[in-house]
């Protein structure tokens, strides 16, 4: 099967392409962008006049709820949502039930995802067994089974000795650690940013210092061990500043922000809107601006959807009892484009933070339109309002 997509505006951040070019696909691979390869005869020609073509999105954090939480969502429903949102590759955290700490579970998940023939699924293995923060998981075995990195999901490792060993061990093999920076004692039972809104609503707060303290520990141990660490879902201005300084210092770290935190603040909780019960909590306007600035200047590498499907019943509860999370796979692209429009960021840079940059963090193919890469791409119709229409 040979396809020619003509007249489209191609955005390929990795190859720094931002112009009207034709894309040529053969046998599911990109064979040329620009001039037609010699002797190329297309079976199908798609006219993409007035449309934008970009690499399929790569999401750094999307929960698929399988195995174990099929009541909340199914693998097939979430992968359909991914593709509908232009996401062709995604990493899923290990906090399933059972936890992804066994190679067999990872193989099964990979296999089931592949059967769907939708988006590529890249599991993050549990860094410690059962995510308990005590014993290391079999990282090499898990990698062989298909894990692209190791994560503790939202569970902190309280024992710094274990964290240190985990980083040392991962550094031995060059594995990436995906860590969420939140000091668990300060955050205990907290459900919202410890600030004005939590005070008014009588909600237990999570202070910004919980992120800064955890981050200080992680960065210091990363520096000692040389581990490659990715900070998941940064939420505070201070956190951005710390990562900025650490990068300047030459640490091997990267980080992301969730699309929600680029657009929402603690005030969006309004009258106890449980859809805004998120982890990390929505913080202040000042934090939101700092995250945005950090993303612009490259301190923050990528935007993730932090897709966490929760069933309706679990949200129909008092704020603190409502389950954490919001869906996001289908919103990653529109929220990124909205951010770009509002912040006057080029499409090339904005798309880069949900394609090439996230693929690089995961160390996976995809996220670009290079020759011989898989033809995972996304055709969309950007409008000057930041809205878009996704073409399938």
């Amino acid at each position: 099967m040979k396809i020619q997509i003509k007249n489209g505006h191609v955005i390929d951040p990795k190859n720094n392409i931002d112009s009207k070019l034709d894309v040529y696909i053969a046998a599911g691979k990109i064979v040329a962008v620009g001039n037609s390869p010699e002797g190329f005869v297309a079976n199908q020609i798609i006219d993409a006049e007035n449309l934008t073509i970009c690499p399929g999105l790569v999401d750094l954090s999307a929960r698929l709820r399988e195995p174990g939480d099929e009541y909340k969502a199914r693998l097939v429903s979430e992968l359909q949502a991914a593709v509908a949102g232009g996401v062709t590759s995604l990493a899923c955290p290990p906090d399933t039930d059972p936890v992804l700490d066994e190679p067999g579970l990872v193989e099964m998940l990979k296999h089931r995802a592949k059967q769907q023939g939708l988006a590529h699924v890249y599991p993050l293995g549990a860094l410690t067994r059962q995510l308990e923060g005590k014993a290391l998981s079999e990282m090499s075995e898990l990698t062989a089974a298909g894990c692209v990195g190791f994560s503790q999901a939202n569970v902190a490792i309280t024992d710094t000795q274990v964290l240190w060993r985990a980083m040392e061990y991962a550094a031995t093999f060059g594995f990436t650690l995906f860590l969420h920076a939140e000091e668990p004692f300060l955050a205990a039972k907290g459900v919202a940013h410890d600030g004005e809104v939590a005070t008014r609503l009588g909600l237990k707060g999570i202070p910004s210092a919980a992120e800064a303290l955890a981050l200080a520990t992680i960065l210091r141990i990363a520096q000692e061990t040389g581990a490659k660490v990715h900070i998941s879902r940064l939420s505070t201005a201070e956190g951005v500043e710390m990562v900025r300084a650490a990068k300047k210092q030459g640490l091997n770290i990267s980080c992301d922000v969730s699309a929600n935190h680029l657009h929402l603040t603690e005030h969006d909780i309004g009258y106890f809107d449980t859809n805004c019960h998120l982890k990390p909590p929505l913080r202040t306007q000042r934090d939101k601006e700092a995250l945005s600035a950090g993303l612009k200047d490259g301190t923050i590498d990528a935007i993730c959807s932090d897709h966490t499907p929760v069933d309706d019943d679990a949200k129909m509860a008092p704020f603190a009892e409502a389950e954490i999370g919001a869906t996001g796979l289908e919103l990653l692209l529109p929220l990124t484009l909205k951010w770009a429009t509002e912040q006057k960021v080029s499409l090339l840079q904005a798309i880069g933070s949900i394609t090439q940059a996230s693929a690089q963090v995961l160390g996976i193919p995809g996220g670009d339109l290079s020759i011989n890469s898989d033809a995972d791409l996304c055709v969309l119709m950007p409008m000057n309002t930041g809205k878009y229409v996704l073409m399938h």
Partner: protein
Amino acid sequence: MNNPQLDRDGNLKHLLSIEGLPKKILNQILDTAESFVGVAEREVKKVPLLRGKTVCNLFFENSTRTRTTFEIAAKRLSADVISLNVSTSSQSKGETILDTVDNLIAMHADMFVVRHAQSGAAHLIAKHVPPHIHVVNAGDGRHSHPTQGLLDVFTIRKYKPDLHNLRIAIVGDVLHSRVARSEIHALTTLGVPEVRVIAPKTLLPTQVEKLGVHVFHDMEEGLKDVDVIMMLRLQNERMSGAMLPSSQEYFKTYGLTQEKLKLAKPDAIVMHPGPMNRGVEIDSNVADGKQSVILPQVTYGIAIRMAVMAILAGGLPAQQQSSVGSPASPGGAA
């Protein structure tokens, strides 16, 4: 974002929190309560405003005083009252809050009086019920306890009618207190010029000053020249641990004694939402002393709760009462 407590015409639909209510409505409730104070003194302590209505007291968290006063208030309005201690029934069988509510709606309840240990529970129920059903928050987590806030202002107004000329101190565990939050909003909305909070840093929420209060950590300094002292209850589980070292030390630093009371104005009144921990936050001499209005607070609580229920479900029009009633002398009912 619509105010969930008001209908389209700006009338009270639910009473969920003092915050967000206009001064006009607070005064409407207070003035209406004024007219109900006398009901209790009649031989037949009943008015027919809620005849044929069913009021459902839904207490997911234990309470004696608040539940009883709501029950008496509803009965004096001639409503049929059911009181459910849900903490000991359905919830323990795994039923959700909204399932419990739906079952009671199916039994044709007209009003829910809700208490729950989680902030926002009353809002959740108010959002869920059909438009003809009213919800009264009888305390949700640390968030709000609006009828308590109103009865406190009502009591203050009885003894110190000129709210625009008062200095009021709220003392104790503001962090965990829905009563304090409701009092602060009620007092600032009604134009009290100086509201103080006095507590150690461990018992104050972050950025409490954004609620419009002056923060004091030293009790002697904070009580100076105040007209009203509102004490807060200290929960047993907070008396020793990471919040406070001991109840003895708390009493020494923040307990209200006769001696500390002297720092306030000579005619200052002392309030407490109950139940009191004598010898922890308040000395018995003060609690039972002539400046204490703690028991009148309970009495007025019934009038306030009658007023709220009558306005919500009794078809009572907005009242424009000019007379506030003559101020009683402190300790009148003690």
